[in-house]
C-alpha cells in the first residue's frame, strides 16, 4: 500500500508540475467560454443591409414589402430583360422577379443574384412573399386578418412526472441535456486520461526503467499507482476547470438574473405581463429552471462520480495493458481499436436511441454491460432509472473493473519486461496464464 502511494505521488506530481498541465488548466475554461460566447457574438453581429431589387408584375406586392435592417427593397421597372441588365450593372444583392401570378398556384417567382444567395435570405423572402399573398387571399375570401390572429392559439404542453411523492415538472430537453453533459464528460475523461496511462507505460518501457522498478515494486502496485495518480491529475484538472468556469459563468448568470423565473415570482410576473407571447416565454424559462431544480441532484452527482471512476478504472487498466504489450505508440493501434469501439459506440448510440427511448431494451442492456454502462447510464439517470437496475449496473461495473484489472495486471506483468517482440492476441491470451 505504501508503495502504491509512492508511485501515486510521483505520477501525480510529475504531471501536475508540467507546463502543459498548467497551460491547459488556464486555457481550458477560456476555450470553453469562447465556445459559448463566439456563436452568440457571431449571431448578434448584423450583416450589412442587403438591397433587393423587386420587379413585381403581378401587382400584389406593391408597397407591401417593407424594408428591414437586413433587407432593403427597391422597386425597379420591367420588363425582366431590362431589369436583369440594370441589375447586373448595380452592386445590389439580388433581383426578385414576380411575374403575373395565378393566386391558387403561384409559380415562376425567381430570384436572380450575382453571387449565390444565402439560405436564410431565400427563406426570409419566401416567407415575406407567402405572407403577403396569403393576406391578399384572405381579403379575397372575406376573412379579416384580425379575426384570424385571434383564432391562432399558442399551445405549450407542460410535462409533469407523476409519482407517489407528488408532481414534478420535467423538461425533456433539460433532462437529456444534463445526462448528455455527464456522459460526455465521462467519455472525454476516459479517452484523455486513458491514453495518458498508455503513454506513461510505453515511456517507462522505452526508458528501460521497469526492470529496476519491478525489483522493488510489484507490477500490480506500479500499475495501480499509475492509474490512480493519473485519475487524480484528471480530477484536479476538472476541479480547477469547474472552479474557474463557475467564476466566469457566475458573472454571466448574475447578468441574466435567473431568479426572476423561480416559482414564487412567476405568477406575479405573469400577471404583470399583458402580452401572451411574453407569458409563454416566461412560462418556458420557468419550466427549465424548475426542471433543473427537480432533478435529484445528490443522486445524479453521486452516480456521476461512481460511473466516472468505475469507467475510468475499467478502461484505464486496459489502456495500461496495451501500453505494456507494445514497444511504441505506433504499435498500439491494433489493441486500441477493440477498447475504443465500445466506448465510441455507446456514445453514438447514446445520442440517438437512448435519448429517444431511455427505458427501452437497447438502453437497458447497454447500461448493464460494464463497457458501455458508464456513458449510457449517465444518459438514462435524469429520466429516472429503477433502483434495482441502477444497483445491478453498479455491481456489474465493479465486477467488470475487477475483471479487467485482473486481466490487465497479468498482461502488464509479462509485457513490461518483454522487449522487441511483436505481440498478437494469441500471445496475449497466453500471458494470462503464465505462472508468477
Amino acid at each position, binding site marked *: 500500500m505504501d508503495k502504491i502511494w509512492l508511485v501515486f505521488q510521483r505520477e501525480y506530481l*510529475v504531471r501536475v508540475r508540467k507546463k502543459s498541465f498548467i497551460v491547459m488548466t488556464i486555457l481550458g475554461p477560456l476555450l470553453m467560454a469562447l465556445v459559448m460566447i463566439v456563436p452568440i457574438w457571431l449571431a448578434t453581429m448584423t450583416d450589412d443591409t442587403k438591397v433587393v431589387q423587386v420587379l413585381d408584375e403581378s401587382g400584389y406586392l406593391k408597397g407591401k414589402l417593407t424594408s428591414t435592417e437586413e433587407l432593403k427593397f427597391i422597386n425597379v421597372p420591367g420588363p425582366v430583360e431590362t431589369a436583369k441588365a440594370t441589375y447586373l450593372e448595380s452592386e445590389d444583392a439580388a433581383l426578385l422577379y414576380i411575374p403575373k401570378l395565378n393566386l391558387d398556384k403561384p409559380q415562376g417567382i425567381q430570384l436572380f443574384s450575382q453571387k449565390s444567395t444565402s439560405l436564410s435570405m431565400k427563406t426570409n423572402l419566401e416567407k415575406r412573399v407567402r405572407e403577403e399573398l396569403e393576406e391578399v387571399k384572405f381579403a379575397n375570401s372575406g376573412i379579416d386578418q384580425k379575426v384570424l390572429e385571434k383564432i391562432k392559439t399558442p399551445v405549450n404542453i407542460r410535462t409533469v412526472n407523476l409519482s407517489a411523492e407528488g408532481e414534478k415538472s420535467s423538461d425533456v430537453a433539460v433532462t437529456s441535456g444534463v445526462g448528455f453533459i455527464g456522459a460526455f464528460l465521462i467519455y472525454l475523461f476516459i479517452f484523455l486520461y486513458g491514453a495518458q496511462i498508455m503513454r506513461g507505460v510505453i515511456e517507462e518501457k522505452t526508458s*528501460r*526503467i521497469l*526492470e529496476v522498478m519491478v*525489483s522493488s515494486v510489484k507490477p500490480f502496485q506500479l500499475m495501480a499507482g499509475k492509474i490512480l495518480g493519473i485519475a487524480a491529475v484528471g480530477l484536479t484538472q476538472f476541479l480547477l476547470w469547474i472552479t474557474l468556469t463557475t467564476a466566469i459563468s457566475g458573472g454571466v448568470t448574475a447578468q441574466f438574473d435567473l431568479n426572476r423565473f423561480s416559482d414564487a415570482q412567476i405568477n406575479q410576473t405573469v400577471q404583470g405581463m399583458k402580452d401572451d407571447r411574453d407569458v409563454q416565454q416566461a412560462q418556458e424559462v420557468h419550466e427549465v429552471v424548475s426542471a433543473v431544480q427537480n432533478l435529484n441532484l445528490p443522486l445524479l452527482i453521486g452516480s456521476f462520480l461512481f460511473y466516472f471512476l468505475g469507467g475510468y478504472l475499467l478502461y484505464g487498466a486496459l489502456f495500461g495493458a496495451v501500453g505494456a504489450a507494445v514497444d511504441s505508440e505506433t504499435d498500439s493501434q491494433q489493441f486500441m481499436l477493440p477498447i475504443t469501439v465500445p466506448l465510441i459506440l455507446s456514445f453514438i448510440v447514446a445520442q440517438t436511441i437512448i435519448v429517444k427511448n431511455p427505458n427501452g431494451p437497447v438502453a437497458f442492456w447497454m447500461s448493464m454491460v460494464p463497457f458501455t454502462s458508464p456513458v449510457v447510464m449517465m444518459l438514462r439517470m435524469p429520466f429516472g432509472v429503477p433502483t434495482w437496475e441502477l444497483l445491478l449496473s453498479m455491481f456489474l461495473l465493479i465486477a467488470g473493473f475487477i475483471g479487467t484489472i485482473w486481466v490487465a495486471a497479468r498482461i502488464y506483468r509479462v509485457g513490461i519486461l518483454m522487449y522487441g517482440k511483436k505481440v498478437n492476441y494469441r500471445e496475449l491470451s497466453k500471458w494470462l496464464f*503464465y*505462472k*508468477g
Partner: protein
Amino acid sequence: MQPILQIQGVSKLYEAHQALNRVSFEVPKGSIFGLLGPNGAGKTSLIRIITQITAPDEGRVLFEGQPLLPHHVQQIGYLPEERGLYKKMKVGEQLVYLARLRGLEKVNATERIKVWADRLDLKPWLNKNVEDLSKGMQQKVQFIATVLHEPKLLILDEPFSGFDPVNANIIRDEILKLRDQGCTVIFSTHRMESVEQMCDYIALINNSEKVMEGSVRDVKARYRSHTYHVEGTGKLLIMSPDFKVLTQAQQGDQFRAEVQLEPQIGPNQLLRYLIERVEVQGFQEKIPSIHDIFIQTVTQK
C-alpha cells in the same frame, strides 16, 4: 559461515522453453560471485527469480537461510542489464524516489545521496533532469540508486557497460569497497578479465543448467592440465613416456615448449629431467584463464 544465498533445484519453464533446469549453488557471504554464461543461458531468468520479479516453477531460493519473502527486496540491490531512468525527472528526486521504494526514509535517503554524489562527482547534477546527463553520468546515477539502501546483496548485470575505462575503474573500486564492508556481490558479465580480477567465486550456466561452480582458484585447479611452460638455452629433445610435448619452438640456441605431464608425474620430475639436458631459464605451470575455461566449457556441449 552461512551462505547469504542458497539456490536449490530451481527450474523455470517459459512455454516450451526451459529457461532454468534444476540449478543449485550457494553464494558465500562477503564474496564477489561471478554468474557466467553465454547469452540466453538463463542468467537473467535466475536473477529475476532472486529479485522476486518472477517465481520459480520448482525449487527454492534461501536468503540468509530463509525462503525469499517480499521484505527481502529491501536487502537486495539490483542493477539490471536493461536499465534506465525517468528522463523527465530531476536526478536528486529520482534517487529519493527509488530509495523510498526500497524502504528508505526520505531524510536518510537525502543524506546518503549527498555522500554518494560527492564520491562520484555528481553533486552539480542533482538538480538537473536526467535527460541532460551524459550516458556515463546516467550510469553512475543508476549505480547510486542500486546501492543507496545499503543492501546486503548486490546483483550487478553487466555493470561496466556504458562506462569509459576511467569511470569503469571508479565503479570497480566502489564495488570492491562495498565488498570489504561486508556486502555480497553477484556479478554477471561477459567480460572475463573483470571476472578474473574481481571474483572470488563463480558459477557457469549453460543451456539452462549449471555446469560449473566453485572458488576461482578451485575452478582453475580443476582445469589444470598438468601442462608446463619451459624456456631455456640448449637443444630440447624429450624422449620419455612420462612427458608429452604439446608445442615446441627452437630459435637458434633458445627453446620454448609446452610439456604435459602424465597424471602420476610431478613437476619436479620434469624439472630434474630438464636440468640434466638443458639450461632452464623459465618454468611455469600453464594455468587456464577463466576466459579459456568459459570457452572450453561452453563449446564442449
